[in-house]
């Protein structure tokens, strides 16, 4: 009796164990967790991190991101030259193949970039092309896509004609939307070209299977030009939306690599050797609606900003994994940017008085609008208390879910303050500073400063890199004077990694070089 009782208790765990065995054929794949299922793998249709992460493994651009240094490395192009005025690039392609064995030539790049620029493709990133000759006219449907300033004089040469001599053009070439797409396959299968049966790429990996919301299976691409140096044989990408589930999967060994750590687990994570933390080219900030009465006054905006103790937020709410903001653009080695102390309660009170709010007078409708997320809520609550304690102002918290938040901030349909964030598309300060020029489509503060616009505009035509960066710095300082944005902290990558993971250094944008990433055997 007693004995059978014990067997009965053991039975469930026996079933568990017997089911778990037998899942080990071939080399162990690298299992990484994507925050969501890729919406598409058509690199001209996507904007999100989860999509770009997979696309980066399946395709390769003319150049590759540096592994240990910020400089780009040769990719599909063996070498390149830049004309003296910085406006003409000539790329020399190496012999490349698509993953189905057909050769990849400069004509593929030609067709791909034309597709990218074509407004009927509907690529949301196509505004990035604007530095290339005629791209703006093509987007506005004034010229056909084949008038884009690019050419393929022969199979191995690809030339680009820029309107502006920008130094970050090569960084753009290493960015996924600038990668080539298999135009023949697309012509054949239309919208279904990204299924595992049809997808053809030129990256270090090929897609073996894609089961929606289950996994994307990647395998080393034998046709890849540098496949001899690709050390990881298999990669498995799992879409897991719940951060806590992803964290648990890492702890249980079901995943080797997760790209976010839930705030509630940061204390524990920081003590673990698997924790990986690195500053990133992104800023978390508050927008002020400069079009609304009261908030059109820079003094009030500055009062609000100087009253926020960023160090305390970073220390206490974010567990010190981020850096308090000292300007709008996150500092990089090439651009140290504006670095000023943004917290000063004395100054905050002075500015509030200057703005005309003394003796308990409240600015009209002070709100913090944020999109629904626990971390945004926590920060908003802390800021709310700081404004109360330092300035005596009562702010109301309003939260909207993502799409409503986007719509309201885009249409400047918010009372006063809204949470925002920006991660640079390429590691140049312009990708931040351009946002608050009067005409920019992403200027969600309604900010307009002709002097600032002029400064930013002048940088486009500067071929002297030093002068250009100095001008950008000047512009950033001016932005901090106007304070349409209240920077709070700079983003950082917070990951958990299997200690065996190697050559997985991210660039400042948080992108990896997929051909190098591997698990040590």
């Amino acid at each position, binding site marked *: 009796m007693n004995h059978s009782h014990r067997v009965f208790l053991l039975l*469930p*765990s026996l*079933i*568990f*164990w017997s*089911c*778990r065995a037998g899942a080990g054929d071939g080399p162990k794949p690298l299992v990484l967790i994507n925050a969501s*299922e890729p*919406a*598409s*793998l*058509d690199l001209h*249709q996507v*904007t999100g991190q989860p999509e770009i992460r997979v696309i980066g493994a399946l395709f390769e651009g003319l150049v590759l991101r540096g592994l240990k240094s910020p400089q780009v490395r040769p990719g599909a192009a063996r070498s390149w030259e830049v004309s003296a005025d910085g406006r003409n690039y000539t790329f020399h392609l190496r012999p490349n193949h698509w993953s189905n064995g057909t050769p990849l030539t400069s004509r593929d790049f030609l067709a791909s970039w034309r597709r990218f620029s074509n*407004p*009927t*493709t*509907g*690529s*949301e*990133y*196509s*505004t990035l092309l604007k530095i290339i000759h005629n791209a703006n006219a093509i*987007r*506005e*449907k004034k010229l056909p896509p084949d008038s884009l300033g690019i050419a393929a004089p022969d199979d191995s040469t690809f030339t680009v004609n820029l309107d502006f001599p920008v130094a970050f053009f090569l960084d753009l070439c290493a960015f996924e939307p600038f990668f080539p797409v298999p135009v023949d396959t697309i012509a054949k299968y239309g*919208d*279904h*070209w*990204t*299924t595992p049966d049809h997808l053809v790429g030129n990256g270090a990996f090929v897609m073996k299977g894609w*089961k*929606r*919301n*289950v996994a994307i299976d990647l395998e080393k691409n034998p046709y890849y030009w540098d496949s001899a140096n690709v050390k990881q044989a298999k990669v498995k990408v*799992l*879409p*897991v*939306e*719940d951060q*806590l*589930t992803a964290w*648990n*999967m890492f*702890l*249980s060994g*079901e995943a080797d690599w997760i790209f976010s750590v839930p705030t509630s687990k940061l204390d524990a994570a920081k003590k673990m050797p698997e924790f990986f933390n690195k500053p990133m080219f992104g800023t978390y900030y508050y927008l002020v609606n400069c079009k609304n009465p009261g908030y059109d006054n820079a003094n009030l905006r500055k009062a609000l900003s100087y009253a926020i103790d960023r160090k305390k937020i970073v220390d206490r709410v974010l567990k010190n994994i981020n850096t308090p903001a000292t300007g709008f653009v996150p500092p990089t080695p090439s651009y140290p940017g504006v670095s000023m102390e943004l917290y000063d309660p004395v100054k905050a009170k002075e500015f509030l008085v200057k703005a005309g709010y003394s003796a308990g007078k409240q600015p009209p409708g002070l709100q913090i609008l944020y999109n629904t997320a626990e971390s945004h809520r926590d920060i908003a609550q802390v800021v709310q208390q700081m404004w109360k304690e330092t300035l005596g102002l009562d702010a109301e918290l309003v939260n909207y*879910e*993502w*799409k*409503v938040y*986007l*719509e309201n901030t*885009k249409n400047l349909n918010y009372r006063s303050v809204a949470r925002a964030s920006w991660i640079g*598309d390429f590691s140049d300060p312009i990708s931040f500073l351009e946002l608050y020029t009067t005409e920019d*489509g*992403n200027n969600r503060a309604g900010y307009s400063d002709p002097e600032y616009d002029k400064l930013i505009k002048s940088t486009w035509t500067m071929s002297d890199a030093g002068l250009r960066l100095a001008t950008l710095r000047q512009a950033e300082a001016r932005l901090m004077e106007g304070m349409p944005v209240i920077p709070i902290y700079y983003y950082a990558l917070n990951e958990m990694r299997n200690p065996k993971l190697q050559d997985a250094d991210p660039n400042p944008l948080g992108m990896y070089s997929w051909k190098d990433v591997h698990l040590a055997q």
Partner: protein
Amino acid sequence: MTFNPAYLRRIAVRLALNVFTLIVIISLSFLIMKAAPGKPFQTERNPSPQVLEELHRKYDFTYSQYLKGILFHGDFRYSYSHRSSTVVEIIAEALPVSLELGWYALVIAVVAGLAFGLLSALYRGRWFEGFVLAFAMIGIAVPNFVLGSLLQLCFSLQWRMAPVAGWNGIDSKILPVLTLSLTFIAYITRIARGSFLENLNKDYIRTARAKGLPEFRVLWKHLLRNSILPVINYLAPATAYILTGTLVVEKIFNIPGMGRYFIESVFQRDFPLALGVIIIYSVFLLSLNLLADIVLTFVDPRIQLQ
């Protein structure tokens, strides 16, 4: 009770009414979705007006186009948020998973609920009854997202008996099914216990026992058959609630079922997908209600199909 023409005709009328209901539901959902604030193609990086125009040209549809597409071509259109897939493809992958999850949970809930209900009714006043009642109460009061996380913490992280997430092989299915079914085990236990207690005191049970019929036969043939009505009545609403429960369970255990689309599609303003999901759920609920009513007429011949 059996399939006489009148009975079949009633079923046909119910079916026709269901189709009508479904069309009303589609229209209603369409209206509500269109009125909801937020645009489907709005992203953090503002797309240019030309791109937006292109996307709308490709994906937009009107009410009549949509209804015609569904009724005559079975075309639920392309999803907005999974751009290279049609709604039919997405649902075809996800529905079986949710059905499997829901089915296991329902079966376990009914079997365990009836067993607990019967035992607690038979052993009235003993410690076992107290235990069952406490369990039933806790099952009702503990939100399933807490339960799911707790099970994950204990069984997956502490004792390493089951994987945290996924839906392949029994080991990955036990925790989610348990999480989903617990509330319903509790509800069915309560309902069944009440019904069993009521019937145990009835004369026919006493008569059957007095006749010397074996206890098992008494319970099986007489008691169960007469007491099961409230449980069957509860099944249709239970299934509807289980469908909602899958939202939570699928999120916590990362199961590739329909539940995630239910929320996600509305959040993303993926109108075609949201409508598709609503239609599937509604068809399911409507058929289930009809089925429950049909089953009832078999269990209790006095009940008529309306």
